[in-house]
Each structure stands twice: as structure tokens, then as C-alpha cells.
């Protein structure tokens, strides 16, 4: 587990390198969601580049598609993509590496970008697994600002109605969106009570950037029968460096050269402390 904690910081560095190379990216949410992705891809999910069409694989849907740079970093480390190629071509003319998930790339199941799409699709995937008697688990990551889209609540309703205990929705609850605090823009709290009222098992993480806590939640979700689980990962937007932590302005931003160097110093220090 210690190595995965260090890996999360290594992949943050890869993420920022991708953003620097492409000249754009949703850096704040990339940083907040990293431990969730690391735990899913390196501990929980049955996925690999050798089994992209395996009917028994687990499914991952990135509903907050704009956290694509973090997703690229994870897919590269997992062996689906080549980091050097992603860095060389991200956002460039005629590149396959765009700013949102695109399923012509290996390892990506569904396209997203416009918010509020992932959860209903995940409900469909989980329903198919149930119909077939498959052991697949389905994970979908949404943002918190994204939850203002009503389609998510249609998905919460149907996920519970169909009793999809193979479905797990992770909310990257970093409390910030483009215009500021989620609670000022369109208040979500009490989010746990809301999702519970929709019939889901809800696990609220004290620290959604703590891999131990995240993994324990996923393990616990597997034991719940008859209803889906929602993990509210209380994360820090821009996690990894004080330069960007908890600052709404870093939702989409490219660091200056000086900021980049400072961020990388911070990330390296954290990684070394965990190594």
C-alpha cells in the first residue's frame, strides 16, 4: 500500500507533465481524483491491456471526463497507453489524445465530457452483468459540481430500483467547481443523506485522498447486497501542492514554469516521504 501512495504522487507528476506538454488541462480535479483512480486500477479492478474485450472484466466509467489527464497518467502506468506518446501528442492536431475520454483508445469504455452521462450508462453496464450472472463490478466516478445535472438523479433512482449491488459510484467531493464553492453555486449538502434517500448504501470518506480509507470502502461495498454503493470521497481539489490546493481558479489551468517547478518539488517531497 505504501508504494501505491507514492505512486499517486508520481502519477500526479506525469499528469502535470501531460498538461504542460498539451498546453491545457483540468488540473484541479485531476489532482483530487488521483488516489481513487490508483486504488481502482492498481488494487480493485479486474482490468488489463490484455483483456480489453474480456466479458468478465470490470467496467470503469469516467463521468467527470475532464479529469482526463489524470486518467491518461493512470492508463499509461497500467500499460494501456505510452506516456511519451501521450505527452508528445496530447491536444495536438489530429491527435487521438483529446481532453475527454474517447473509447477508440485501449482501456477506455465510453466517451464522456458532457456531465451527467456516466451514472446511467454504469447502471446499464451493471444491469447487463446482473442479467448475465457475471461477476463484473462497475465503477463510475462523478464530480460533485456535476451532480447538479438531473440525469445523475435518474441514475441514482434506477440503480437502487434495480438492486445493483455490483455498481459503485464514487463522487469526487472536492467542494469546488468553476465558479467557486459547490455550496454557493448549487448546494449539494447533505449529500450523504440525499443519496441514502435514493436507496443507496453510502460511505462517506473522511479523507478521499487516503488510499487505505478508499480501499476499505471498496471492500465494504462488495459485501453489501441488494443495493448499489456510493462512496463520497471528500478530496482536496489541486491535492499535492499548496500552489493549487483548494483554489477554484485551478479548475482548468496550466502552471507557469515557476509554478510547475514548485509543484514538482512539492510532489517529489511527498512521494519521497511515502517511499
Amino acid at each position, binding site marked *: 500500500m505504501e508504494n501505491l501512495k507514492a505512486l499517486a504522487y508520481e502519477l500526479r507528476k506525469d499528469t502535470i507533465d501531460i498538461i504542460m506538454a498539451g498546453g491545457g488541462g483540468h488540473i484541479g480535479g485531476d489532482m483530487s481524483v488521483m488516489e481513487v483512480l490508483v486504488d481502482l486500477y492498481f488494487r480493485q479492478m479486474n482490468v488489463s491491456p490484455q483483456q480489453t474485450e474480456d466479458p468478465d472484466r470490470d467496467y470503469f466509467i469516467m463521468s467527470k471526463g475532464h479529469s482526463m489527464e489524470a486518467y491518461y497518467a493512470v492508463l499509461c502506468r497500467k500499460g494501456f497507453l505510452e506516456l511519451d506518446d501521450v505527452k508528445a501528442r496530447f491536444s495536438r492536431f489530429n491527435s487521438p489524445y483529446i481532453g475527454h475520454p474517447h473509447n477508440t483508445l485501449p482501456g477506455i469504455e*465510453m466517451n464522456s465530457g458532457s456531465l451527467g452521462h456516466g451514472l446511467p*450508462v454504469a447502471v446499464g453496464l*451493471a444491469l447487463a452483468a446482473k442479467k448475465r450472472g457475471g461477476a463484473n463490478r462497475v465503477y463510475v466516478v462523478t464530480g460533485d459540481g456535476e451532480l447538479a445535472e438531473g440525469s445523475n438523479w*435518474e441514475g441514482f433512482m434506477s440503480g437502487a430500483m434495480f438492486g445493483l449491488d455490483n455498481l459503485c459510484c464514487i463522487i469526487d467531493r472536492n467542494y469546488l467547481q468553476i465558479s467557486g464553492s459547490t455550496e454557493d453555486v448549487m448546494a449539494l449538502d447533505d449529500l450523504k443523506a440525499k443519496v441514502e434517500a435514493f436507496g443507496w448504501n453510502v460511505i462517506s470518506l473522511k479523507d478521499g485522498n487516503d488510499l487505505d480509507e478508499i480501499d476499505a470502502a471498496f471492500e465494504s461495498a462488495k459485501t453489501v447486497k441488494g443495493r448499489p454503493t456510493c462512496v463520497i470521497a471528500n478530496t482536496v481539489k489541486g491535492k499535492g501542492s499548496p500552489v493549487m490546493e483548494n483554489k477554484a481558479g485551478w479548475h482548468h489551468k496550466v502552471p507557469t514554469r515557476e509554478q510547475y517547478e514548485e509543484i514538482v518539488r512539492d510532489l517529489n517531497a511527498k512521494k519521497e516521504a511515502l517511499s
Partner: protein
Amino acid sequence: MKNSIPNRKVICDVLMEHAKEDKEIMVLCSDSRGSASLAPFFEAFPDQSVEVGIAEQDLVGIAAGLAKAGMKPYAASPASFITTRSYEQCKVDCAYSDTNVKLIGISGGVSYGALGMSHHSAQDIAAMSAIPNMRVYLPSDRHQTRYLIEALLKDNKCAYIRTGRNPVEDVYTEENCPFEMDRATVLCEGSDVAIIACGEMVRPALDAAQILKEQGISATVLDMYCVKPLDRAAVIKAAENAKAVITVEEHSPFGGLGSMVAQVVSENCPRKVINIALPDAPVVTGTSQEVFEYYGMTGEGIAQKAAQALK
């Protein structure tokens, strides 16, 4: 004898015939199984039926998820809702993500008569045709509907199929229903005018040809059930042999069959193209037939426009 079987019922029949053997066929409804004539499917195949409630975005998103996992979902909801309420799901989750979702728009056009513009779908052809990787089909009668659904069951790409609410007079017979996927059906050939129609407007187009014949005007009639991909070769051939082209569709005058045919004709063999369609305005209150008569979308109305176009 007047046909009493609506196209939507034929869709249910064909899906039921195949669902016995093919357990990957799934039917999804949004509190619409009755109006989609799919209640018998839900009764006979409960494990292959999904009710999502009045939630069209969820309907299409779930269908896309099922398709991604290898199922063959048919999502049915009123045409007006499935194409506009869940337009983005049709675009992103179906077409863009390339999932095998068949979107069945029921009670299309002005089928809902007096229920007003909220329930009319006069934009669906334009909206769905503008999405890359989305196909758009409007079968003209129950026989063609059967062939179309049989063909769609064999492929793995998404498509939108619009049907009306009411039984429509047959264009074909059980014994004689020529069908080639993505090719218009030539119903008759003439040298004066080419009438190109889709969906429920094909039968009146054929009636118009008969009226015109009595006036000494010979008409080609194309059943362009495949609005997208449009059978361009058939359009060009019909236009080349005629002095004017008439298009007929139960749709807005913008972005539908008429617009597409006009593009092809103007590029390849310029002729006068007259588009007979619903107005760019709230449609007059009435039954489908009353609405069609009011706007000249009948055999007589089409024949009159065709004769005028030749003057």
C-alpha cells in the same frame, strides 16, 4: 381491407419472435410500454425488459450501458422525448461512443394530434440526422417495418427508427415488399416529376402518382425510408429523369428529407425542388388526417403541388 395494425405493433412482434432465441435482445421503456405496443414483450420476456420510469435520459444512458456490455437494446419512447429530451445521450452515449442502441421513436410527427407541440416530433429527423454515426429510418408501412427491424437486428450500430401511432394504409403486400437495406424503394417510375417521401407520407405520395397519371403526368415515387444514410444514387436518378422534384415528410420544413434531397439535387442535377412538410409554426389542432389535409399532405395535395411545379 383497411389495415388495422400499426407499425409499432409490428416492431413488438418481430422483437418477440427473435427474443425467444436471442437472450441479448433487451427492450427498454420509459413508462411507454403501452403506447409503444410493447406490453406483450414485457409480459412474455420480463427478464429482457427494462422499465426506467419517466426518465428519457436514463433510458438512453442505460441502453448504451447494456449495449457496451454486449446486449442488443431497443429503447422505445415517444419520438418527441427520445430525440430531444435525451438528445445528448443519443449523441454522446449512442453515436459518439458507438454503442449498438436502437432508438425507437413512437407516435412520431403529429401522431398525438390535439396534444400539442410538446408531443409532436417535427424536429427529430433534423436532430438525429445531424449526429455523426446515427442512422435515421422512417418505415412507410407494416410490411416494410418488419423487413427493417429484421435487418437492424443483424447489425451492431446505433439507429433511430420513427414510427407513427396509428395504423397506416399499406404501401406493400406481404408477398410483395421489396426491401434492400439503405436503398430507397422505387414504387413507380415516370418522366415528369419525382416524388420522394418517407414514413407515413409514402402512401399519399403513391396516391398522388395515380391522380397525376389520370391528368397525363407521369411520376416516379421513391420510398426513402432510409433518410440517413440517404440513398443519393436513387435521388439523382429520379431527379435526372424528371422536370421537378417533390419531397414529402411529416416534419419541419428545415433539416429533414426535403433539405437533404435539395442538397443532393442541387449539387448533381439541378431541378426545382418543392418541399411539402409541416409548417415552421405550431401545428393546427386535429387528428393526423385532419392535419395532413389542412397542410396539403394528402394524395390530392401532393398531386396539386406536383402539377403546379411543372407549369
